[in-house]
């Protein structure tokens, strides 16, 4: 009963999740909770299973074991990628993945939260509201001036921002953001932290990042993963003072 109450009111609830690739346990009895309008930063060494965890949440990888619930109720392990995305889970990939042969504008337009059916998409025409929304998003991610450029011609950092813009356009309840500031300048990093903090006022955000100054900037709860399990949890100061974390991650 207390367990049921524990799930209630969570945005994301992972309990005892494990997955093995050819016998190698990439995720090992992992339990993580994210509340509505909360930001969680996840740190951890390479190969800790951070990206794999996102794969499990978004339906790309099926866990061997454990519970993955969205919004306290919906069992994500039974759904496919598209269904999970339409529930309101958006994801930014570690390697920025935008649609390179489309313009910046079209990338956002495709991501915009609209009916995804075949005929709805075939006969879709952007109305004034959609145009205003896309413009607003492009302003937020500072790509309005490049709206007609092909995404292929953006810099690495700009692609990261475009992908964040696509996330915003999806209007998700939960955002999974994998290494958003890789390839960004210091100034861009600060901006990104500001933007994500802003988003987290109304939505749940899970950020994976190696850049410690960025994580500090976020000022959120921190979880350190290693070998597919939680090593330490708490504020960044608590976690980075943890001797095990220092030994296994920060100290190297």
């Amino acid at each position, binding site marked *: 009963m207390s367990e049921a109450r524990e799930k209630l009111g969570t945005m994301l609830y992972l309990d005892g999740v494990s997955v093995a690739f050819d016998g190698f346990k990439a995720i090992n009895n992992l339990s993580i909770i994210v509340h509505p309008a909360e930001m969680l930063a996840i740190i951890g060494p390479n190969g800790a299973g951070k990206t794999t965890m996102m794969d499990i949440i*978004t339906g*790309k990888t099926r866990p061997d074991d454990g519970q993955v619930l969205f919004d306290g109720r919906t069992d994500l392990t039974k759904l*496919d*990628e*598209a269904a999970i*995305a*339409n529930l309101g889970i*958006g*994801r930014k*990939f570690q390697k920025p*993945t935008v*649609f*390179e*042969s*489309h313009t910046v504008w*079209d990338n956002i*337009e*495709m*991501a915009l939260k609209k009916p*995804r059916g*075949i005929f709805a*998409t*075939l*006969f*879709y*025409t952007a109305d004034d509201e959609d145009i205003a929304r896309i413009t607003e998003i492009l302003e937020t991610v500072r790509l309005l001036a490049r709206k007609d*450029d*092909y995404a*292929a*011609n953006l810099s690495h950092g700009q692609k990261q921002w475009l992908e964040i813009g*696509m996330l915003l356009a*999806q209007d998700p309840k939960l955002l999974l953001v994998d290494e958003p500031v890789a390839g960004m300048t210091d100034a861009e990093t600060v901006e990104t932290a500001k933007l994500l903090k802003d988003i987290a006022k109304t939505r749940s955000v899970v950020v994976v990042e190696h850049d410690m100054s960025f994580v500090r900037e976020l000022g959120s709860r921190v979880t350190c993963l290693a070998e597919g399990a939680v090593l330490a949890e708490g504020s960044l100061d608590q976690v980075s003072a943890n001797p095990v974390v220092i030994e296994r991650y920060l100290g190297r």
Partner: protein
Amino acid sequence: MITQALFRALDKKAIWLVAILLLVAVAVPASNLLLPVDSPFRLPNYAVPLFGKYLTFAMLALALDLVWGYCGILSLGHGAFFAIGGYAMGMYLMRQIGTRGVYANPILPDFMVFLNWKELPWYWYGMDNFWFAMLMVVVVPGLLAFIFGFLAFRSRVTGVYLSIITQAMTYALLLAFFRNDMGFGGNNGLTDFKDILGQSISAPSTRAALFAASAIALALAVLACSAIVNSKLGKVMVAVRDAESRTRFLGYRVEYVKLFAFVVSAIIAGIAGALYVPQVGIINPSEFEPANSIEVVIWTAVGGRGTIIGPIIGGVLVNVGKSYFTGAFPEYWLFALGALFVVTTLFLPKGIVGLIGQYRAATTKREQHDRDAPTPMQVEAGADPQPKPAE
């Protein structure tokens, strides 16, 4: 809603293309029928169905391009949909022969009498009605594509594996249609047609009408494809081609997007096949040959995939070349075709249309260079809306 979609289809390039096709639809028959026999501008009788055939090939290439160029599905079995559309038309034409056949059986086509069949098989019912037969031209290829695509795309068969099973599909149909007991004339197929809609199939006026119908059908296919690729769904198709898994994470059902493109494409291919058969006067199982489907891929690649006009140019030019070659030096045609494909893949990844794009980019670049500081990135962007080569 639909008018908006149609409006979108009419971008400048599509308008030009449709206008040219409609012009051709009028000019070719007119030149053949109206000009005096000794006029240098008169098209000889044999040329009309020959050109008509090229147009149906162009339509087949356009159909393939919709799935391959825009959606990344390399079908090596599109000849099958073309052939099935052709067989549906052939069945109608067979039933029009009536008592003029060798055995003069009013119901059964000659080959059935020859096989000692007493009754028409159920799937031949209704095929003597033109409109019912035309419905089958659309429905049967569409249904086959739907079932095949549903199974393949739902199981996420992609890339080389998908190409192989499409090839297997057309091969299986080839073997099936070779069998006499299938009821499609076996090895010999369907031929010796007499009438279409009450008109003699070999009359110049009928051939002219068939040519015009082919040009108009191609124009309509251009409009349909253009409406699709200019819509948001068309953008999603390209997204599926370039980053399939990413598209899923945006919430699009990739399998349905592919299924839609595949079915529409199969229907266009089927209609092309139905127009092909009365102009060449025969349909037999060789149309299912895997090599035929591979040739379509070559036409499309040569013309330029991921564009509307590319496959049309490729479909016509390669086949004009083929007609010439098979007349002049028949034994070298396959070598020429192979060489063409290799040259295209190596030097013209975007085909003939890409070549024009490259030339334009070069001139714009020069102009821009003269005007102000060069911005190579933008120039490239402006000239490079075409797809990257598929894997």
